C-alpha cells in the first residue's frame, strides 16, 4: 500500500498555524457565530518558500494559492506578479522529513512494516493483512478516516507491488474517495490496467522523463508495448535502441526499464523499513520536592542504576546524557554530559553528574528528575573483569578521560596527531583524547621527517637577539629570557619555506638551526628570512623549540 500525502508540507504548515488560528477562531466564532469567516481566513493564498541564490523559490502552495496562479518551483517574484497578495512562510524540508518518519511509524498500524518514500509518501506492507480490516476497501477507508482525523490530505492505493501502488496513489484514476485498489493478477492484466498512467508514474528522474517525452513515450502502455515483444522489424529496432539508450544506467530511478520491471514485479525492489528507536529515559516523580543536595544525589544514583539496566537491556551504552530537573515553580534545569566512550557504568555516570550539580538553584524544591540518553551507541555486554578489578581497582582509560574533561574542560585533554605539513607548528593537530580509537590514523596524513626535532615546542616562538656572521652564518651567541648563551655546536640550517598556498606572499622562509650551548642545553632556533629576500629588513631570530 502506498500512501501519498499530496500536500504534506502545506498541511503541516497549516496544522502548525492551526493552534493559533483555532484559538482566534473560537474567540471569533463565539462573537460572530459565523463559521464562514474563519474558513475564509484559512484559505488565504499562501506559498512556502526557500531562499535560493536567485531569490525565494516556491516549494509548495495551498489550494487558494494554486487557484491564484502560484505553482511549485516558481520564483516568488513571478507568482507575486500574478497575484500580489500572495502570503509566504518559510518551508521546512527537514521538519517535513522528520514528520514523515513519525508518520511512517504511525502507519505501521496497518501493516507489519513501513518504509519512507521521500519527500511526501509512505509505503506500508499490507500483505495478508487486509482481512483484519475487512478487506482492502475497508482498509483504505480506514486509512482515509485516520488521515482525515489528522487533517492531512492523502491518497492511498493498494497494489501487488510497491511500484504499482505508488503509481496508482500518485496518478491513479480518482474514483470517489481518491483511493484505488489493484487486485493481484497476471502481468498482462496489470499492465492493461496501468497502461493509461503517465510515464512519470515510474518514479523516474526528471531528465529521464524529458528523454521519454522526446521519444514520444508518454504512457506506461507505450513503453510496455515496445519492451514486450517485437511484431515487426521497426519495433524490434525501437526496442533495441531503447535498451541501448539505458544500458549503462544501473540506478532504478534513471532507468525506465528497471522501473517497469519493478512495477510489474519481475524484479525485486528492496525497501528500507523504518525502525522505531526509543531513546532510553528514566525518571522519578518525587512525593516531596527535594531541596537538598544529598537527597538529589541519592535520586541521581537511583536513576543512573535504572538507566544502566535500561541500556543493558538494549545492548547500548550512553554517549550523551541529559539530566532534567523540574522545579515546583515550573522551571526546568537541564545538565548535559558527554562521554568519551560509550558506557553504562552507573557509578561513573553519578560521579560525573555530581560535578555538574554544583550550584543548582533548587528554589522551592525539585519534584521530578529525569535522565535521558540523547546519544547512544551499541555497547556489547562484556564480562566484568573480576580478577583485575579486585586486584587493582583501577579505572579504565575512558573513565579517566571523562573525569579529566569534566573537571578541566574538553579542550584541556587532547592528543597530538601528526599532520602533513613541514611547518613545525602545523605539523601537529590536537584531537580529542580518544578519537584515534574510533578513526585510526591514515598513512598519507603523516610526513616522514628525517631530521631531528626538539622534544618541546613553544606555543609561540620567542624572539631572541643573536650574534651571527651576516648575512647567513652560524649563530655565535644569543640572548634569551635575559640571559646570554654561548653557542658551542650548531647543526643546520634546515630551510623550511612558507606554505605559499595558504599564507601571504610576505611570509618569510625559516632557517632552523639545532644548537647546543656551552652548558649543554639544546635549542631549536630559526632565522626568519634572509637579507635581501625583499620581504622585510634585517631578519629576526626566534627560539622555537627546546630539546632534551
Amino acid at each position, binding site marked *: 500500500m502506498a500512501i501519498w500525502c499530496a500536500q504534506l508540507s502545506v498541511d503541516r504548515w497549516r496544522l502548525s498555524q492551526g493552534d493559533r488560528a483555532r484559538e482566534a477562531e473560537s474567540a471569533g466564532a463565539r462573537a460572530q457565530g459565523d463559521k464562514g469567516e474563519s474558513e475564509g481566513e484559512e484559505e488565504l493564498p499562501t506559498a512556502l518558500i526557500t531562499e535560493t541564490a536567485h531569490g525565494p523559490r516556491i516549494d509548495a502552495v495551498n489550494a487558494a494559492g494554486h487557484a491564484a496562479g502560484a505553482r511549485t518551483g516558481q520564483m516568488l517574484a513571478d507568482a507575486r506578479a500574478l497575484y500580489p497578495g500572495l502570503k509566504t512562510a518559510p518551508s521546512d524540508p527537514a521538519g517535513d522529513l522528520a514528520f514523515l518518519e513519525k508518520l511512517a511509524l504511525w502507519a505501521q498500524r496497518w501493516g507489519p512494516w513501513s518504509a519512507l518514500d521521500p519527500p511526501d509518501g509512505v509505503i506500508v506492507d499490507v500483505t495478508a493483512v487486509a482481512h483484519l480490516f475487512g478487506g482492502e476497501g475497508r482498509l483504505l477507508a480506514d486509512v482515509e478516516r485516520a488521515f482525515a482525523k489528522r487533517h492531512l490530505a492523502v491518497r492511498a492505493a493498494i497494489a501487488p507491488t510497491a511500484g504499482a501502488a505508488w503509481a496508482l496513489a500518485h496518478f491513479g484514476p480518482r474514483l470517489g474517495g481518491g483511493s484505488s485498489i489493484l487486485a493481484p493478477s497476471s502481468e498482462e492484466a496489470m499492465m492493461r490496467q496501468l497502461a493509461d498512467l503517465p510515464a512519470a508514474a515510474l518514479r523516474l528522474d526528471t531528465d529521464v522523463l524529458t528523454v521519454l517525452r522526446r521519444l514520444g513515450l508518454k504512457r506506461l502502455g507505450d513503453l510496455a508495448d515496445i519492451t514486450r515483444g517485437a511484431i515487426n522489424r521497426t519495433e524490434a529496432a525501437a526496442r533495441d535502441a531503447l535498451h541501448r539508450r539505458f544500458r549503462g544506467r544501473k540506478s532504478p530511478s534513471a532507468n525506465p526499464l528497471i522501473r517497469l520491471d519493478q512495477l510489474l514485479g519481475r524484479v525485486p525492489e528492496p525497501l528500507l523499513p523504518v525502525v522505531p528507536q526509543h531513546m532510553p529515559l528514566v525518571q522519578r516523580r518525587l512525593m516531596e520536592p527535594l531541596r537538598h543536595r544529598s537527597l538529589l544525589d541519592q535520586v541521581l544514583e537511583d536513576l543512573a542504576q535504572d538507566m544502566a539496566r535500561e541500556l543493558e537491556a538494549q545492548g547500548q551504552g550512553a554517549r550523551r546524557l541529559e539530566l532534567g530537573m523540574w522545579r515546583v515553580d515550573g522551571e526546568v534545569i537541564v545538565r548535559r554530559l558527554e562521554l568519551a566512550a560509550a558506557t553504562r557504568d552507573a557509578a561513573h555516570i553519578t560521579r560525573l553528574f555530581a560535578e555538574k550539580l554544583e550550584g543548582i538553584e533548587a528554589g522551592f524544591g525539585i519534584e521530578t528528575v529525569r535522565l535521558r540518553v540523547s546519544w547512544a551507541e551499541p555497547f556489547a555486554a562484556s564480562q566484568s573483569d573480576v580478577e583485575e578489578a579486585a586486584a587493582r581497582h*583501577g579505572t579504565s582509560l575512558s573513565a*579517566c578521560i571523562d573525569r579529566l574533561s569534566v*573537571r578541566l574542560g574538553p579542550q584541556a585533554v587532547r592528543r597530538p596527531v601528526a599532520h602533513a605539513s613541514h611547518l613545525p607548528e602545523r605539523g*601537529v593537530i590536537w584531537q580529542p583524547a580518544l578519537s584515534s580509537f574510533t578513526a585510526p590514523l591514515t598513512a598519507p596524513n603523516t610526513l616522514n621527517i628525517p631530521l631531528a626535532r*626538539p622534544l*618541546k615546542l613553544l606555543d609561540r616562538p620567542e624572539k631572541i637577539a643573536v650574534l651571527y656572521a651576516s648575512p647567513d652564518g652560524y649563530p655565535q651567541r644569543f640572548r634569551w629570557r635575559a640571559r646570554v648563551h654561548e653557542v658551542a655546536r650548531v647543526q643546520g640550517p634546515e630551510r623550511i619555506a612558507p606554505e605559499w598556498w595558504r599564507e601571504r606572499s610576505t611570509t618569510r622562509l625559516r632557517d632552523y638551526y639545532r644548537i647546543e650551548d656551552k652548558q649543554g642545553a639544546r*635549542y631549536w632556533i630559526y632565522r626568519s628570512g634572509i637579507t635581501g629576500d625583499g620581504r622585510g629588513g634585517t631578519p629576526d631570530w626566534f627560539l622555537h623549540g*627546546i630539546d*632534551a
Partner: protein
Amino acid sequence: MTKPDPLSRPKVPPLAHLSGVDVAALSKQREARWRPGLTDQPLHSEIFASARDASGAGLALALARDGLSVCEGVREQGALAEAEDRRQILWVQDKRAVELSGRPYIHGLPEEWRERVICVEAGKPEDALFALEEGLKCRDLACVIGEIAGNPRALDFTASRRLSLAAEKHGVALWLVRLEAQSDLSSARMRWRARPAVSPEPRWDAKGPGVPTWQAELFRARSHAPGEWKLAQDAKRLCVSKSPKPPAKETERPLEHTPDVPFKSSRKSRHKPAHNGNLVRATFGRSMAAVSRG
C-alpha cells in the same frame, strides 16, 4: 620520610632475628648503586630542573622509557607472548609550565610514543595534581609524566604523599618534573636534580649537537645510595656516559663505605646538610620493614 614511622617500628624485627645472609643481601641491595635498567623501578620520582632547558622533561622521558623497557623485559621473561605495549601515556602540565617550557612536540618524541601520548593542560596546579592522581588511578596508562612549575602551595607533603600512595596502589609510575622549584618536603621515592651536560661528539657531524646528555644527581632515594651520573640517551636506551669527569670519578668509588659517612659531602653540604645522616638510617629502617614483610 626523614624519620621512621614510630607506629611501624615494633613490626620491624630486631636485627638479631634476621639471618646474616638477609642482612648481607639487604645491605647489598641498599648499597647497590643506581644504574639504568634496574628491575625495582620507583613508582614516584621527582626531577628538579630549570625551565630554561628541557633537561627535566628529557630525563623524565628517558627514565620512563627505561622503566617501561625493564617492565617489558620482565614480561617477556615470564614467557607471556604479549603484544607490543600500546598503553597510553598521560602528560600533564600546568599552565605555567606550558608557558615556560612549551608543549611536547610529537615529532620530537620517541618513535614508539608518538601515538600514545595524551596531553593535559591544567589551568591551576590543583587541577594538575587532580589530573596526575586520576592518571595514576587509571589501569590503562603506561605511566604518567607531570610538569609543574615552581612550588605551588597545593603541592605540599600531603599532596605528594597522596600521589605516592595512588601510584603504589595501582602500579602506575609517576615522573614529576619540577621546573624552577625548591626541593622542599616530598614523599617521592627518588628525587633527581637534572641539568644539561655537554653531549658527546656525534660520529658523523662533529660540529653538531650529539645525543641528549644530562648531569643527573640522585640526591634522595629510598633504596639506593645518592650519587651523580652523566646519563645519555642513545637510540635505544639510557646509558651512563663513559667520559670520566671529576664527579664521575666519585661514582667509581668502591661501594663498601659506611652509611654514616655522608656521601659526597662536598655537594650535599650545599643543600640540607642536616638531613644526610638521617636519610640513610631512615631508608635502612624502611627497607628492613619491606624485606621482612615480603
